[in-house]
């Protein structure tokens, strides 16, 4: 509870991975730590880093089972998932 920890808060999130993203990263979920004020775009960039340069399709991000916008802010407790291009049906 120092002044420092209050100004430099971090958000720890568990990110669900599917399909090509799960395969490239080798996990069905990963823990990521982002700076307070991080957006969906920041999260996506952090996750793509984990793929270590493997080719991946562009992906959307879902927050709490809803498609999120790129500039949407993340907050602790959000259920976050990377959504590669869907191909149901």
């Amino acid at each position: 509870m120092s002044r420092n920890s209050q100004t430099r808060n971090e958000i720890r999130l568990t990110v669900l991975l599917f399909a090509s993203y799960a395969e490239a990263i080798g996990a069905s979920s990963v823990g990521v730590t982002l700076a307070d004020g991080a957006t969906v775009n920041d999260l996506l960039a952090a996750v793509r880093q984990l793929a270590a340069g493997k080719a991946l399709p562009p992906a959307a991000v879902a927050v709490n089972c809803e498609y999120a916008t790129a500039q949407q802010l993340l907050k602790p407790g959000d259920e976050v998932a990377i959504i590669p291009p869907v191909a149901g049906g």
Partner: protein
Amino acid sequence: MTFVALGPAVIDPAALTASVQTAECGAVSLFIGVVRNRNGGRPVMGIEYTAYEAMALAQMRRIVSELENEVSGVRIAVQHRIGQLGIGEASVVIAAAHAHRAPAITAASRTIEELKRRVPVWKCEHYEDGTREWVHA
């Protein structure tokens, strides 16, 4: 009331039809998506479907509810299968019932379009040569 399901069970189109039919219905339109033996010219042996289940169910419910609001009097059921499917097996079945045929057909057709656009389900195609690939259509 609305029937929306996702899971490894074989889909029974008759059960979906029964779930939407009432005495007021004059028409039921069914759409059945089936695993076929080729894609983009490559021979396919089977497809493995995976889903973000909680979100897929939420999105399917949302689509049904949007279309039931938009097409007055329509009743829609949707079931998507996941797991390893062989050629000819149904991956998705949609049933839409209405007093009249045009709204039933429109609702079933709109449902499959929206499902393909929004519902987080993915398929990994297995090819004759032993390779596999995630479909990013």
